[in-house]
């Protein structure tokens, strides 16, 4: 038997703890009711001593409490009562009227009478933790709902995109048919009219405009897949080599920096390189070398496509990416910028001698791939 002095010390110690402590005997009579529990429950130690716990709190008669508490009182393992599966073990109202959320452990109490097993009930207040987790879960559920909504919207956007693509393809096909008929008839007409005179000027203008329409319609067809497929990671060295296959002028030398830099871009990324190389061949006049290189910085990677041709006049540099601006269709650089923009890449022209296009790639859009 533990001396009454030690019992007194244990009781004092329990009163100092910030958790609820209650000791019951095998008859479930309350032997100790610490200060924290008294404060939470509004019942003092004097009021509850020797009263039966399950008479004070009748819900403790239910199987899920009774059997498990009795198992402890028979010398069995501790019983845990979690906050999510149980209303409060000892219902304690807070100032705002809400019940304190509790996590309770019932263990065999080795102190006290050696002829009788007693149980210690330890109650932790987890109200704050519970509220925080519920708030977090509510935020998570909201975020998940938003993601689901977004996925739905993306699916519907993809469907609309496919329909638009189909519509655009049919329209382009129909226009090109009509343009072919128009060009054929205009050519026949051209042969029947004299070399000089207003009729010749009019027919030349008709032929010129019709051919321009044909070229533009054909050109936009090549960009049909813009933004339709998911972006992916592309190795710059491979993209540059593939794009350079259009370089049919043997007098131009192509230098490509080797390395494993990969960029997250639209599947039409290669078109950007083809466009710039094609522009250099067509409009660069004195081009002898095209260099494709890149540099990696902490915040971005910069890919440069430069040539040693005549360059772009300073007053035109800002306009070259505008739709319709340029010597050919006026769409090449405009669409190149759009392709890059899909994954947040940007392009500028910075050449002083010759042309130099810089593609700026943000840090989360590039990586160093595996070296082959």
């Amino acid at each position, binding site marked *: 038997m533990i001396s009454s002095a030690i019992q007194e010390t244990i009781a004092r110690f329990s009163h100092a703890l910030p958790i609820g402590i209650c000791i019951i005997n095998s008859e479930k009579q309350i032997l100790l009711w610490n200060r924290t529990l008294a404060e939470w429950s509004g019942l003092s130690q004097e009021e509850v001593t020797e009263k039966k716990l399950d008479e004070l709190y009748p819900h403790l008669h239910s199987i899920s409490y009774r059997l*498990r508490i009795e198992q402890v009182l028979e010398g*069995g393992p501790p019983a*845990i009562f*979690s906050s999510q599966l149980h209303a409060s073990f000892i219902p304690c109202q807070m100032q705002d009227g809400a019940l304190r959320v509790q996590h309770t452990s019932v263990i065999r109490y080795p102190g006290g009478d050696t002829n009788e097993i007693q149980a210690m009930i330890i109650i932790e207040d987890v109200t704050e933790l519970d509220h925080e987790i519920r708030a977090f879960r509510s935020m998570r559920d909201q975020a998940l709902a938003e993601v689901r909504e977004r996925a739905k919207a993306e699916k519907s956007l993809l469907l609309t995109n496919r329909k638009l693509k189909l519509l655009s393809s049919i329209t382009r096909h129909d226009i090109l048919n009509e343009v072919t008929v128009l060009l054929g008839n205009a050519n026949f007409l051209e042969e029947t009219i004299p070399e000089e005179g207003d009729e010749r000027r009019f027919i030349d203008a008709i032929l010129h405009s019709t051919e321009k329409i044909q070229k533009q319609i054909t050109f936009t067809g090549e960009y049909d897949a813009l933004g339709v497929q998911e972006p992916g990671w592309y190795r710059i060295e491979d993209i540059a080599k593939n794009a350079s296959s259009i370089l049919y002028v043997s007098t131009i030398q192509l230098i490509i920096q080797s390395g494993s830099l990969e960029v997250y871009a639209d599947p039409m990324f290669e078109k950007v390189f083809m466009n710039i190389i094609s522009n250099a061949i067509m409009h660069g006049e004195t081009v002898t070398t095209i260099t494709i290189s890149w540099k990696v910085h902490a915040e971005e990677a910069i890919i440069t496509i430069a040539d040693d041709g005549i360059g772009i006049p300073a007053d035109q540099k800002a306009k070259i990416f505008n739709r319709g601006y340029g010597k050919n269709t006026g769409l090449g650089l405009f669409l190149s910028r759009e392709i890059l923009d899909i994954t947040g890449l940007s392009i500028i022209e910075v050449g002083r001698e010759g042309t130099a296009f810089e593609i700026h790639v943000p840090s989360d859009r590039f990586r160093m791939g595996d070296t082959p």
Partner: protein
Amino acid sequence: MKIDPKEIDAIRELVNIGVGKAAGILSEMTGSTIELQIPIVHLYSEKEFHQIESSLGGERYAAVTLNFEGAFSGVTFSIFPAKSADILIAAITGDEPDFSDKILHLNAIHAETLKEVGNILINGVMGSITNVLGKQLLYSLPTYSEGEIPALIESVRSEHREAIFIAETRMFIRSLDIEGKILLIMGSNSLEGLIARVREISEQ
């Protein structure tokens, strides 16, 4: 130690009684009928521990641990694979299951809930065993952890790590199938004591 299949069968019966009691408590607590399948019991000696990983797989488990000491000493684990832990929590709390096959998303409240379920299962089984042994044991407070089977076994003190009973069961809640296992790890003296007592009872 040579163990007769009949004795393994008797231990399976003990585990079954314990698991049945646990099912009754869990059903009352959750307001849903919870059925627990009759467990399949395997005994592994220390030399056979390496077979456990191949039979249970290398996945991570949510585990509730209870240490006990006395005439019978060792550790009991109640373990749930990630997917089952997820379904179990969803079934008894009404929360949406994650189905990620990972247990990292379990928050403190979920872990606490699993700890209680594991505690009920373990107490059911330990109750049956101590009834048969007729001895009282000293228990630690149950704890919750996550890990792979070898790491869980390694966490047990070496003198208590000489034999393992693995009881595999399935829990059915509202037609949801939840897989759970109870690992009873003990020293050879404890195993011998348990088998001797089981033998004694069956000879009566």
